């Protein structure tokens, strides 16, 4: 085991930290937020120029062939910088869907454009009642001659407002709405006839859209992978997404922890800096412990992306999401509390980090949903003999 970064990884980390410190201070972020897309096209272009957008993509398509550890480094830095740009939507979700699922022709066409920052992607998967159930897809896909026709509604498509192309999951077969079989994935031009988008700002100041698809016709080469068989791909990408989210949360929590410690050292009350009060010191220590446990589990998630055994990987991802959800809630709430009234204001950075981690917890299943899943899977530690199954929890099937 070795937790040290390689020279290249350290270079990546240092480059990003320098870039963010110089070009992404908090007040600049505020400006970027007020730009048309809610983020900075110029900052995006700089990320492309530095090769960051391609770090995770295969070399033969204009990328640098980075893996989960590079993804962790990048997402963690972005978490610290509280970046607004659509890296997660485009590269982590879109890039992984294409790298792991697309045909050679599709990759050649799309991935270099992704690496150079010219192509923005959105993953249109989540629906009204799907929540954490990745198999819950009601959007329909039917064949019409050589074409496919899509109908349905997709919710909270991250950066779906600016995406040039949407990766849309749709049900082309299977027993019912909840069947893992029978899901297909399509690459849909965002401007295609029948696609309408309603965009909005999210609580954490980023952007998303709801997407409705009415009688949208796409050609057969829009299909990603094999028809009816997209679920394993979607799940694998969800695991990459979870590891990335965990890393981003660690970055955001580091910032909250450090800011809070700094604040306690400088803010004077009752004639002494707050850091002299033991009860407040211990709160800061508890934040630190929550952060360190979270950092460990973000590393665990990263390490388990390479796990071949699907059950083991599922357990690991759930465990990581539970720890990060719980830790970040604790760290965020304490950070606000310890800042006092100032922590409640829009001008204070802390609230923005708190909002970001709160939103990240909600994506790809919150801590409690994953706890339910992990418990169902028998936890992390094998008792020797297999455990009896509980009735499978019904997720997103009510209403």
């Amino acid at each position, binding site marked *: 085991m*070795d*937790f040290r970064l390689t020279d290249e990884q350290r270079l990546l980390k240092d480059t990003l930290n320098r870039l963010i410190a110089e070009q992404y201070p908090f007040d600049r972020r505020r400006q970027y937020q007020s730009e048309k897309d809610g983020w900075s096209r110029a900052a995006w272009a700089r990320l492309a120029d530095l090769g960051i957008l391609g770090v995770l993509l295969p070399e033969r398509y204009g990328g640098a062939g980075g893996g989960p550890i590079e993804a962790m480094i990048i997402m963690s830095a972005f978490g610290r910088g509280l970046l607004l740009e659509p890296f997660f939507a485009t590269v982590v979700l879109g890039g992984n869907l294409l790298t792991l699922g697309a045909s050679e022709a599709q990759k050649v066409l799309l991935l270099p454009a992704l690496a150079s920052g010219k192509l923005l992607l959105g993953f249109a998967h989540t629906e009204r009642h799907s929540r954490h159930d990745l198999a819950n897809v009601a959007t329909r896909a039917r064949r019409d001659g050589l074409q496919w026709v899509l109908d349905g509604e997709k919710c909270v498509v991250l950066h779906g407002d600016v995406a040039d192309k949407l990766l849309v999951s749709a049900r082309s077969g299977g027993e019912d709405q909840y069947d893992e079989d029978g899901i297909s994935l399509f690459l849909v031009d965002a401007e295609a006839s029948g696609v309408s988008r309603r965009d909005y700002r999210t609580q954490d100041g980023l952007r998303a859209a709801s997407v409705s698809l009415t009688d949208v016709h796409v050609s057969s080469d829009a299909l990603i992978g094999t028809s009816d068989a997209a679920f394993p791909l979607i799940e694998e990408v969800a695991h990459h997404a979870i590891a990335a989210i965990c890393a981003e949360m660690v970055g955001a929590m*580091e910032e909250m*922890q*450090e800011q809070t410690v700094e604040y306690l050292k400088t803010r004077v009350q009752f004639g002494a800096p707050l850091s002299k009060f033991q009860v407040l010191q211990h709160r800061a*220590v508890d934040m630190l412990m929550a952060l360190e*446990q979270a950092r460990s*589990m973000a590393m665990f998630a990263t390490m388990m992306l390479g796990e071949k055994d699907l059950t083991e990987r599922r357990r690991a991802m759930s465990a990581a999401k539970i720890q990060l959800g719980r830790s970040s809630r604790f760290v965020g709430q304490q950070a606000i509390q310890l800042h006092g009234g100032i922590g409640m204001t829009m001008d204070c950075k802390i609230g923005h980090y708190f909002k970001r981690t709160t939103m990240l917890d909600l994506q790809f299943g919150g801590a409690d949903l994953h*706890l339910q899943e992990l418990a169902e899977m028998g936890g992390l530690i094998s008792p020797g003999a297999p455990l009896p199954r509980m009735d499978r929890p019904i997720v997103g099937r009510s209403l």
Partner: protein
Amino acid sequence: MYLQLTPRELTFRDEVRAFLSSSVPRDIREKMLNDGRLSKEDIVRWQRILNVKGWAVPHWPVEWGGTNWTAVERYIFREEMQAFPAPPPLDFAVDMIGPVLIAHGSDEQKRQFLPRIANLDDWWCQGFSEPGAGSDLAALKTAARRDGDEYVLNGQKIWTTMAHYADWMFCLVRTARGEKKQNGISFLLVNMKSEGITVRPIITMEGDHEVNEVFFDDVRVPAANLVGEQDRGWDYAKFLLSNERATIARVGVSKARIRRIKELAASEYCMGRPMIENRRFREKLAAVEVELKALEMTQLRLVAGEEGNGRTGSSDATASLLKIKGAEIQQATTELLVELAGHFAMPFIDNESQELVGDCWNGPFVTPEWAARAAPTYFHWRKMSIYGGSDEIQRNVLARGIFGR
């Protein structure tokens, strides 16, 4: 970064596992699975098996019986022993006084004691805490006056674990009054058979005799039993405490207990179904497992030497984190065990006689053995967040790490 055990480390782990399977006496393992109390004889027996294998003191220098294992290998060895479970080594001997003698003892002390520690020929206890010096350890008052070639000890120690088994005690005594209370403390090795020593049991709430009070009444200790220099004992004590780091979280112990809970929960019923199918119970268990996995990774980060050592500031601070979280998790597992035992946690079985206490017992079956130990185990391990520096003291150490000073 390489976030997996290397093939070499995995081979080593298998080797340790194979050794444990073939070498841990069955009766001892059974006792441990049921949280039974190990006898002195159990611990000595196991230590000597380890010593024959050459694994009694793997972290010592090779000339004194060490193995040259890497930090990760030492961690794997401990963790596998805990998870099997095999008895922990007597930490006062192999983890505390052994390394102190190696680093600061005289040649004579090393020759006299180290081989006997490896083979557990001498049972050691630790004389640190006093009635007025618990968390504030440097406030200790037990005094040693130099008289020719001897020191004369007077005073009292408390919470002395297994002093009633002990042949030797390493203890901190006051030899001078300095401006700082940390100065003027010396580190002495005391033969427990010496005249003037009284050991009095303290019975803890679960009904067990593990800790004691020790009184010194004009006890004469040869000056040759002074470790290092007079009045510099605080430095050696700090060195000793920092050696706890590698094992403090006891991840393997919690793993073993969770595995045991799961096994038992498959055959304990509640409302017609095994407890393991009780969603609430299973989720609580899973939540503890997540914290445990995180702790395991945190510990590995420390052991494998992470760059910059996280953000805790120092490895001392990280050790404090491991202590706090390790205790929290172990305590949580003992709570789950009580919950699992339910009403079967109630009968009081005397630990000494192994018999039910009361007059109305009319048959052999009262409670499964593991369930009889559930509540005492829970009561017993409340100590974990108190001893070895309480949770509050550990938080102070961590706070110094992040606030400076």
